């Protein structure tokens, strides 16, 4: 029995190891590219650079006349944190309402939301821009927060599915004890939903770092309020790509840092299942 378990464990590690190699490969390659000095340019046939330099990184922060990386990084961080908080709250509240509360419009609303997400998003960009303009909000970081969290409610499914698995008896006990539904949400459901919060937080935190289409419509000519993805994209124009490709890679590596850190920090909430310590028994 013990032997078999050991064999299993070894097999697991081998599989995980191979998979990690495959998954990490592009990332490692990206990091290598970001330290590449020669050959210069946007394309190499070889995996490993000939010579290495850290200049690609330092230049991002020292040579800011063309590409104001530090400022864009700051912009993105602000937008990411704000929209992450707003959308997480929205997603969790929406999911909670659809999972735990019973009201007449529940089913129709769920159906409507399901259907709403099915129209190609990029076609709505210009409309959204003009709506924001009517509110006098375009070209601001705030408008980006609104755009990124505005559609958040439509991604409630995962969280709802999760809430559905939390035994109702827990809520009911609290309600009998005189808690309001508001208190049940904050004090009981939320603490039990940490794994799904990780997912929601991570997803909404990532969006501003990776979007370059929406932000280009909203920010237009306001270079100072660009986010990092749009800014980095400027390094890929045909005039710039040869000279700046390795800096582009360096910039991309730095984006991954806050996101990875956030995940590592939130990992600790992945503790055990809800039912393991819950009121099931």
């Amino acid at each position, binding site marked *: 029995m013990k032997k078999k378990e050991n064999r299993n*464990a070894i097999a697991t590690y081998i599989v*995980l190891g191979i998979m*990690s190699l*495959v*998954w*990490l490969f*592009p*990332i490692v*390659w*990206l990091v290598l590219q970001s330290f590449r000095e020669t050959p210069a340019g946007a394309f*190499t*046939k*070889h995996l490993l650079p000939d010579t290495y330099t850290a200049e690609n990184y330092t230049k991002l922060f020292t040579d800011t006349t063309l590409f104001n990386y530090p400022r864009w990084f700051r912009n993105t961080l602000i937008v990411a944190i704000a929209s992450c908080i707003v959308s997480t709250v*929205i997603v969790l509240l929406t999911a*909670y*309402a659809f999972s735990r*509360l019973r009201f007449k419009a529940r089913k129709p609303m769920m159906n409507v939301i*399901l*259907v709403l997400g*099915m*129209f*190609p998003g*990029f*076609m*709505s960009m*210009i409309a959204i821009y003009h*709506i924001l303009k009517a509110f006098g909000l375009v070209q601001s970081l705030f408008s980006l927060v609104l*755009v990124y*969290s505005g*559609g958040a409610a*439509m991604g409630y*499914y995962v969280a709802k*599915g*999760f809430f*559905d*698995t*939390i*035994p*109702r008896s827990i809520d009911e006990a609290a309600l009998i004890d005189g808690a*309001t539904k508001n208190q049940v*949400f904050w004090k009981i459901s939320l603490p039990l939903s940490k*794994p799904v919060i990780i997912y929601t937080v991570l997803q909404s935190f*990532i969006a501003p770092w*990776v979007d*370059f289409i929406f932000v280009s419509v909203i920010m237009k000519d306001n270079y100072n309020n660009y986010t990092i993805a749009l800014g*980095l994209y400027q390094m*890929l124009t045909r005039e710039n790509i040869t000279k700046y490709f390795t800096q582009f890679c360096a910039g*991309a*590596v730095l*984006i*991954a*840092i806050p*996101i*990875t850190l956030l*995940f*590592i920090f939130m*990992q600790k909430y*992945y503790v055990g*299942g809800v*039912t393991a310590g819950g009121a099931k028994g």
Partner: protein
Amino acid sequence: MAARLSSFFRGIGKGFRHFFMYFIQGDLPTKLSYLIMGAGCFLRGQIVKGLLYLAVQAGYILYLVNFGAAYVAKLDTLGDVTQTKEFDPALGFSVIKPGDNSMLILLYGVFSLLLGVVVLVLYLRNIKEAWENQQTIASGGRLPGLRDDVRELFNRRFHVTVLSVPTVLTILFTVVPLIFMILMAFTNYNREHQPPGNLFTWVGTENFSQALWGNPLWSRTFLKLFLWTMVWAFFATFLNYIFGILLALLINQKGVKGKKFWRTVFITTVAVPQFVSLLLISKFLHDQGALNNILQNLGIIDSPMPFLSNGTVAKVTVIIVNLWVGIPYTMLISSGVLMNIPEDLYEASKIDGASGAKQFFNITMPYMLQVTTPYLITQFVGNINNFNVIYLLTAGDPKSLSLYQAGETDLLVTWLYKLTVNEQNYALASTIGIFIFVICAVVSLLTYNRSKAVQEEDRFQ
């Protein structure tokens, strides 16, 4: 269905009857509510609520006068003043006099009307509330004060509190643009009718007949891309789903050490933006790229493998690369859900002597499907509309002469994008958008409402 429809119409009939009945039988504050919103509350002591109603009414009127009415009034023609120019001899050039902007008329017109619908709902509510207040007083009851209303909002009517902000944001950033886009399909907003110099107007269903049978090359492209879109969405969704769950299971196993480490490894791939990672991958897989170079140096192949340059191979490549993109996400979601599977289910089956595979199919998968069917449906639809992966990895290439303005790996959505960018044919793009939309909506509504997740959503509660 028929029963539901008839009850819907009966409901409307009842609403109308009540609307008139409340007016006839109403006292002065109730009657006044028909003219001034909030009167039924305000005059009966619910000051704050009454003022809020009044603010809504006043605000909307102000809005219409200052902004909305000009657009709503032109909604029938989408503008009739064309941009003109007139030569000014003193200046030496023709001065341009801006005309109407059809796009803004359509957008702000729709916005104003939708806002009107919201106000109308509140208006009807205001009447109903005035009537209920009258009834309560008549039967000697006490009207709820502000404090009671607020308390209600945190308890019995907590859903109103919770859903109000998401609803407002969704209407603003999703519903208004959506209606705007749908209406655009009934106009001639194309290359010849670009603002600000030109107006566009309503053309009925012309775009639909054009899209369906107006042009054979066109319909053929639509059909081909539609089939590929479905194939892509199927593989992209289900392969990612199954392998993502397997990966999560692998990491979640009891004996596995360094769970945090493994998860972090896979998450770093999510942390690097797709527009970077996919760009690198496409360079890596290029005919002259590193992978072909290595394989050739090792003597495995003689000539470059056309990973991205041959249509059929490229289709397989994008599906495989999408696994790289999608599996970490599924792993992330399912890790949490998997932890919630009651341990006793596994233990019971272990006692019955079930193997790992059997447990997976009998316990894990049913449970996962139960919880994540809605997620699967949205993933499927999301993949139908998966702009990023295709656009960033291949941009739809390789192009093909048998397709109209499209390449072999183009999805309908990337094709749409190209139509708007290359041809500025927003009307036709919206028309195709509506087709996609209808297909997705029907498929997902049917599966969603029949899925166990919805029908038995309380099963695990």
